[in-house]
């Protein structure tokens, strides 16, 4: 073990910030994080054992007890379930002679669920030792189980098992005309940094992760901070169930995204950038590193970018299965090698981010757009969309439709238009913006994709009339309870209470008052949680309760709460013994 550990530590240059990276290697090597490895790391990285254990327990892809040599994680998003995940799971369990949640006695294979893997347009999906397996079928399960039993190394498996398609179905402003490599950088230096920022300001570009903070303003704030070090971080931790656009953008337009980051670095004065790539996209890691190396070779990254004296480089850091790391301050904690727990704000990352230095965190799509804006000008972008939502939005469409995939639309496009384009029929409703967003019914399809109407990070899940709303809400509510970081009381306890309360009603054990209680827990979560996760965790309940109250009421048992016995009569013996018969010795039956 010592040799392995030393090599791994050398690879991360003994930087404690890269703790997740080394734990990933240890997990791969030993199928878990052994106690000896934890002690060794604590000594060598000079960090407490508690930090290592906390990180190992926080991220779903690390384990303190051994998993199988082949570790299978089944994506458990609602879209996987709609595509027949339950039956395939049973089949897989039979083939492997292994129950979900277990490690097989011979240690060869383990099977578990995981949150959405970003393959909703080609599910049901799974990860095997971290690598994505899309389009699971009975046939592919036959192939996979045979390869496992034959103990064939994953590197020798047929590549078609891992083949992920881009499925770009509709292009608009950005995707119809991607910029040529390096043109963004040359355009920026030709215009000047101030003028380039002015173009981004003019474009009215707002953050594409969903929150919609104005990009130019964020960059300006960061640039104005007095500091020697600044950082640019690209948030590619798209964990919102139903979103997968960043997967495609990074697969196909990585250069443009990196160019956007480099432009940001020049404007704010950063020398180091990070791409925080969700662990589920491990299969993109090598390719993206190759793109970065190519850019270094071509002078588009490094000490003297396009001979203009700009020094900037980008490092890829992988996540390890934690939805909360999509929250920017949790992401920064994760970059520092810690559990992804959102920070208190203020201060905001623009003034106190990575290693407490000013940091810009933007979504993949935001950097992609910024690069194009610097080339094409702010007006080019601002002329598209609505008054309050400039430009276009890239949607990840999945669920009950003929053509799931990537669709780009100008802001202001109606839901009806989008449903028509993707071939959705007989629609019950659409989940806009993922579980943390909003469920809209088929009475609302004239509404628009826009910050002022339906704001979204891009997740768009279609449900047809055969789907049961409570199944959907249960899946989403389970998701939040599983992904809550547990830092604050309302979310740590509230997401689990909400799950219990919803299950009680959905399973037919609810009685009068239980829907009111469901709403009350939801309000607590929304109003008192520390971060966006908790504040939106009750949205699936709240947005469907508002639209379909009768659905919840129908689940309730008809109990009026009459006590089963006469409470006052039961006290008669006690009254006789006490020689009392006054009013205070009698109990009134509780009125309904």
């Amino acid at each position: 073990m010592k040799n392995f550990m030393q090599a791994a530590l050398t690879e991360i240059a003994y930087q404690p910030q890269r703790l997740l990276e080394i734990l990933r290697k240890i997990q791969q090597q030993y199928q878990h994080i052994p106690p000896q490895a934890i002690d060794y790391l604590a000594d060598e990285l000079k960090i407490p054992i508690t930090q290592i254990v906390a990180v190992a327990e926080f991220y779903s892809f690390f384990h303190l007890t051994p998993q199988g040599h082949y570790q299978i994680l089944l994506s458990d998003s609602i879209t996987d379930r709609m595509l027949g995940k339950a039956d395939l799971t049973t089949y897989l369990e039979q083939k492997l002679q292994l129950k979900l949640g277990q490690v097989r006695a011979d240690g060869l294979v383990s099977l578990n669920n995981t949150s959405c893997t970003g393959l909703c347009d080609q599910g049901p999906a799974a990860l095997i030792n971290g690598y994505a397996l899309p389009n699971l079928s009975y046939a592919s399960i036959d192939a996979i189980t045979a390869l496992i039993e034959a103990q064939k190394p994953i590197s020798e498996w047929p590549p078609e098992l891992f083949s992920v398609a881009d499925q770009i179905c509709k292009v608009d402003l950005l995707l119809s005309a991607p910029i040529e490599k390096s043109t963004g950088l040359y355009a920026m230096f030709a215009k000047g940094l101030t003028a380039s920022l002015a173009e981004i300001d003019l474009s009215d570009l707002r953050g594409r992760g969903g929150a919609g903070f104005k990009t130019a303003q964020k960059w300006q704030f960061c640039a104005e901070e007095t500091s020697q070090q600044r950082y640019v971080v690209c948030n590619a931790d798209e964990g919102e169930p139903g979103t997968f656009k960043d997967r495609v953008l990074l697969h196909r337009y990585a250069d443009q995204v990196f160019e956007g980051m480099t432009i940001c670095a020049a404007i704010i004065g950063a020398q180091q950038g990070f791409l925080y790539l969700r662990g589920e996209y491990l299969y993109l890691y090598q390719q993206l590193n190759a793109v970065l190396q190519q850019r270094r070779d071509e002078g588009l990254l490094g000490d003297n970018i396009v001979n203009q004296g700009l020094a900037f480089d980008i490092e890829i850091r992988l996540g390890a299965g934690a939805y909360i790391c999509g929250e920017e301050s949790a992401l920064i904690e994760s970059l520092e090698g810690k559990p992804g727990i959102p920070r208190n704000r203020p201060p905001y990352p623009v003034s106190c981010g990575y290693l407490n230095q000013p940091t810009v965190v933007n979504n993949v799509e935001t950097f992609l757009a910024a690069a194009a804006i610097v080339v094409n000008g702010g007006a080019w972008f601002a002329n598209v969309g609505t008054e309050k939502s400039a430009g276009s939005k890239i949607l990840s469409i999945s669920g009950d439709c003929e053509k799931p995939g990537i669709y780009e639309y100008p802001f202001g496009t109606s839901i009806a238009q989008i449903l028509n384009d993707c071939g959705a029929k007989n629609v019950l409703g659409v989940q806009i913006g993922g579980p943390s967003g909003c469920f809209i019914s088929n009475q609302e399809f004239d509404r628009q994709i826009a910050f002022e109407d339906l704001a979204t990070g891009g997740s768009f899940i279609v449900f047809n009339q055969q789907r049961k709303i409570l199944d959907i809400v249960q899946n989403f509510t389970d998701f939040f309870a599983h992904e809550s970081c547990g830092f604050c009381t309302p979310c740590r306890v509230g997401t689990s209470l909400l799950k219990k309360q919803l299950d009680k009603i959905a399973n037919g054990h609810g009685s009068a008052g239980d829907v009111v209680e469901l709403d009350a827990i939801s309000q607590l979560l929304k109003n008192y949680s520390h971060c966006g996760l908790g504040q939106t965790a009750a949205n699936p309940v709240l947005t469907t309760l508002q639209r379909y109250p009768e659905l919840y009421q129908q689940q309730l048992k008809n109990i009026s709460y009459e006590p089963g016995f006469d409470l006052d009569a039961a006290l008669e013996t006690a009254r006789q013994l006490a020689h009392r018969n006054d009013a205070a010795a009698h109990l009134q039956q509780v009125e309904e």
Partner: protein
Amino acid sequence: MASLTIDGQRIEFSEGQTIIEAATAAGVYIPHLCHKPGYTPHGSCKLCTVNVNGRNCSACTFPAAEGQAVLNNTEQLKQDRRKITQMLFVEGNHLCPSCEKSGNCQLQAVGYQLNMLDNHFPHFYPHRAVDASHPEILIDHNRCIFCNLCVRASREKDGKNVFGISGRGINKRLIINSATGQLKDSDIDVNDSAAHICPTGAILIKHTAYQAPIGERIYDHHSIDEVALEQEHGK
């Protein structure tokens, strides 16, 4: 001097103070458990949530600013703080009558202060262990509310790193910085701040349990708001 209002009452504060610091200095109590004067604010228990210009904020982390209109003692906030306290009760195993911290416990005292009369929510009844390995200090994980005070005390006051909070969501747990995970193998000392800071009965000093009998303990005679304000002003 800069000023803000709390429930309409004008309060002066100095630059750099949080809302709870400004309030306490002015003699206004805001319920709290994870906050303790002199320690880095944590902002996790959410009991100190106040409404600042229409938005809910943690008073222990949010900076006081000129002209803020802070709401603290509203019916809504009191009711919701009670529910947050009830959440803390059902999450762990808090059995006051058999707990040696009863009467000195801040969780219990906050419950009294907020007029909490039942647990309201269904209990989780988690399986949590007791670590009695250390000769002088006992950890009963059943009573941990993850306030992080022992973690901060060890780091900030004792110059050690004895405690940490691990796990995720409802599976949160207090962990010990030692190879075995047991307290006896850590470098904690019975005189450390971290051994004495627990607001509940999760970390206890052995052999001292009933030196003050039940009925003669601090919150048996004083409400927690009195005690908190007195401690702050008396220091």
